[in-house]
């Protein structure tokens, strides 16, 4: 349990490195991993957190003159259990919602994914992308898909196979993630950020009892989160 805290990145801590977390969501075999791989090509360092049934791709870039470290979270097949573990959504700054234009059911399942996303992250930017357009001779790009319009989400026709719009879509996802992190008004985010900073304070300084209490409560909160994640990951509960 102790090393879980070390291995799972924190995204709201202000410890010098500016980090954002972008998650991919959607049905099995819609091409989520293929899209991330196409964007990163060889310049990525995949990190398999096996206890968590997820894959992390780390990417360094610059947004508005600032160095940003982006972690793309990929489900590693977790979607087969129909819903994702809460830790997948935890602290995410942006979501890429993917469906497969060759399979209607993956489009019809978008509302379920979106609903689950909104339960955990009510306000983060979410992009919708229609993958595998090369597979149907691009004919599908003449059609408009109402799901994105209805929820006012940016929409992209992409192909992980020939690369169409993949880079554009990911760049915009990263920008939205940074934009969200800068301007979040989400209550949970603000509370988490306060707690993280208090946590740092109590560890690094001698503080009076008042702050110390707050520090302890932050500590407790984190431990609880870890426990919860560990249980889900091993699947023993």
């Amino acid at each position: 349990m102790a090393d879980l805290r070390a291995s799972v990145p924190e995204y709201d801590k202000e410890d010098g490195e500016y980090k954002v977390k972008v998650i991919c969501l959607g049905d099995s075999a819609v091409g989520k991993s293929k899209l991330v791989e196409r964007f990163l090509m060889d310049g990525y360092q995949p990190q398999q957190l096996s206890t968590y049934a997820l894959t992390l791709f780390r990417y360094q870039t610059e947004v508005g003159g600032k160095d940003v470290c982006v972690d793309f979270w990929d489900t590693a097949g977790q979607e087969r259990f129909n819903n994702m573990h809460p830790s997948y959504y935890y602290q995410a700054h942006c979501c890429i919602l993917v469906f497969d234009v060759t399979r209607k059911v993956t489009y019809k399942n978008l509302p379920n994914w979106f609903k689950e996303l909104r339960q955990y992250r009510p306000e983060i930017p979410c992009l919708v992308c229609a993958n595998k357009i090369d597979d149907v001779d691009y004919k599908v790009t003449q059609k408009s898909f109402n799901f994105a319009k209805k929820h006012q989400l940016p929409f992209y026709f992409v192909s992980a196979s020939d690369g169409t719009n993949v880079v554009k879509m990911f760049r915009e996802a990263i920008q939205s993630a940074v934009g969200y992190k800068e301007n979040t008004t989400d209550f949970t985010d603000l509370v988490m950020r306060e707690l993280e900073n208090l946590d740092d304070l109590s560890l690094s300084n001698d503080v009076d009892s008042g702050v110390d209490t707050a520090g302890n409560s932050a500590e407790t909160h984190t431990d609880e989160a870890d426990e919860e994640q560990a249980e889900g990951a091993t699947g023993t509960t």
Partner: protein
Amino acid sequence: MSRQYSLRKCGIRFDPPALFVTYTDKSAGKTRCRTMPIRNFTKTSTVTRFVEDFRKNPRHKKYLEDVPKSQLEKLLRLLQDNLRGMSLDQSLNEIRKEYSIDPNEDLNKVDEETLRKKKTAMEDSFEKNRKKPGDPDFEYEVERDFQPVETCEWDSGDSGSDADF
């Protein structure tokens, strides 16, 4: 098969078991056939392992690299079904079903082996249109604007379940 050879077809023989590849040797302008014996393959062998072994085999590799992985899997399955005493028709039917994609089938709900087969079939079309570094027309950033002119038929009808989201 790169420059020297171009693949024409790939098939299987049941007895004695062997894979066949017919290809054109461009430099000689001739069509040739290569036979690759399948050894120690039984009713209970793991098809995917044999496919991997063939694709990695230093002597066979260059003849098989243009053959879709799913085709090799299907051919070995035919052989295995034959060893199990299944009729060719029945075997072909089952294999076709297992490797075809039903746009309405929810793949979140199928078992791992079923999902693996569907993904193998999808991998073929992924590779078919793929542009990768090294290809003459590869570009990292590919941008295209699309202007939809009609509504997708997937949006019509059963919107009842979609009330809130």
